[in-house]
């Protein structure tokens, strides 16, 4: 990679890390004008920047608002690059679509919010359904968005049955194969995930992204 090209991609990466939407947009424009292939800009400028944000969050060097601003800066970058990349290539540049939500009865959102942000930083298209989400809503939204993964978070043992209910519903409507189901939340364990037939489980939000990437790779 030439020095100039690297400098431009570094500028974009830095703007994304700082959550500077305007700066990121301008840097993306400069990359376009310098003839850097847009998918390369996504990979080595945007994606690497977002990855660094995720890593620094794990070390408590950056926090949830910083992740949100970085993701929004990433959206600005994509607005510049999307027309040049084209819809089909755009699809290829994202690992997949995830819907996230806290299960029926559960109003705890912070873990789910962090998971959603880390998914975004990893390049997933994320649709956050919020809290207290019924099994029916998970199904209907997964259908509407043609999601790859349904990720259900629960912080209470009494809301965990919702995770099983989603899987049961998918089986009942014969659509279990269409979606990968991930479960998580403080009381959720690998044993529970296995018992209810979930496709993926992780103890931490960071681990959830790793599991999701594996699930879409094997889909």
């Amino acid at each position: 990679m030439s020095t100039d090209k690297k400098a431009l991609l570094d500028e974009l990466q830095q703007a994304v890390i700082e959550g500077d939407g305007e700066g990121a947009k301008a840097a993306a424009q400069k990359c376009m004008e310098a003839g850097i292939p847009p998918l390369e800009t996504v990979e080595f400028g945007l994606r690497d920047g977002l990855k660094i944000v995720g890593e620094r969050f794990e070390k408590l060097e950056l926090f949830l608002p910083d992740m949100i601003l970085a993701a929004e800066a990433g959206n600005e970058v994509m607005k510049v690059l999307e027309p040049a990349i084209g819809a089909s290539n755009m699809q290829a540049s994202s690992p997949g679509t995830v819907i996230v939500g806290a299960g029926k009865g559960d109003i705890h959102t912070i873990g789910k919010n962090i998971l959603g942000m880390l998914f975004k930083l990893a390049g997933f298209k994320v649709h956050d359904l919020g809290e207290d989400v019924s099994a029916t809503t998970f199904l209907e939204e997964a259908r509407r968005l043609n999601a790859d993964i349904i990720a259900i978070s629960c912080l209470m043992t009494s809301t965990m049955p919702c995770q099983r209910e989603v899987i049961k519903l998918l089986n009942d409507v014969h659509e279990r194969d269409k979606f990968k189901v991930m479960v998580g939340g403080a009381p959720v364990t690998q044993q529970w995930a296995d018992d209810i037939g979930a496709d993926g489980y992780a103890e931490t939000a960071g681990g959830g992204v790793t599991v999701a990437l594996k699930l879409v790779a094997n889909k």
Partner: protein
Amino acid sequence: MIDFFDVIKRALNGPYYSEQDFTLKIMVPKLKAVIKKYGIRYDPATPIPSNDQLADDVFRAGLELCTEVGCYCKDTSRVIRFTADEIQEALRDAPSQPFFGEGRDRKAMLARKPESSDPPYCYVGAGGSVVTSEDVFVRLVEGYGRNPLSDSITCPALTKINGMEIVAGSPLELLACIRAVELGRAALRRAQRPGLPIMNSIATGVTATGKIGGSAFGLRDTDCWVVGFTSPLKVQFERMNEVAYLLARGAQLVGEASEPIGGFAGGPEGVAVISVVYHILSILVLRSSVHLTFPIDIRYGCNTSWEIMWPISVAAQAISRNSHHPILNLAYTAAGPMTEMCLYEIAATMTTFVASGGNIEFGGVAKGTSQDRFTPMEPRFATEVAHAAAGLSRVQANEIVKTLIPKYKDRLSNPPKGAKFQECFDWDSIQPCQEYIDLYGQIKTELAGYGLKFK
């Protein structure tokens, strides 16, 4: 202090914001601004600072933030705001020495100060952790009640009723709430302490319907009822409904707030300041008898890490130096029962809480998420450490905590699970096994060497 009807009115008619705008455009920038204005800086070298100026600055920053930001009502997307005068009035009128319990177990919770030699109020038990059966529930609660240093009890949560898994919001939840109250009261009678207050209302319940319905089967106005905010600085009608019910009953409640480090409040400085805001909102919005502050490190699902100790201590110092409304601090360990790590974690948090001016709640063991993986021994140990820590200077406490955390900090991401209740306690006598007694004795001896004076 303005009355609860005014609070409801503001929840219905206050300024409108989308939830994201309230958080990202109002709360986050104003929090950053007050941290900068008051020069609040995290010092990683000192988990328990002895700097009164820092504590008072954190309190002033919290007061200012509370006035500017207020509390977001999720049901109406309206902000409940209070003037500086209303906040001062609330701090003046807030309860300062509420009594809980009945008969021989009736006791006041004091608003302690940093370095106070007043023994802390000890609210102990399961921290709402989950059990597999009613038998385990009853034995645990009886065990908690038998600890002479227990001042009030936090019961476990049931996961099944009549063999059926409890589903939130279903009739099973309500029935399980009723069962949990009946079992809790029966267990405390077995412990010969029927007057001990059950302070976490009904951990089995999620909805106001479940808790209110269940409470009619044995909860008393002298117990207490934990009602919580949602992070960051938000409240739901579901919780305000519980407040309305409790006020009509003349019952007591603990206002609870848990702000994660790394979340919307940012790092240690933000968590310390926002903890002060919750304290004020707890008095005004939740009409609390006491306030429970529970910052947590979401990386590990506990609050025993090095980084979380500073905001816990600074917030407790800030509040206890500037408010007469009592505070509780809640501990969650990463490691499970009958492990050295778990006992070190308990010792570090109890020392921090007590030296910083707090009373204690203990607590969650093994992150409070593993069924039956907690016993009466951890709360007993916690109460003994908490009493031993009363009267320590912050400098002494800081040295103890700095000695303890390095013993386990590298294992926080992969802590030992430890033993389940059934594995380390005798089922019939509800006494710990010899291995656990030996470990407990060994760690207490070690802690005494660091300056904790066990009675």
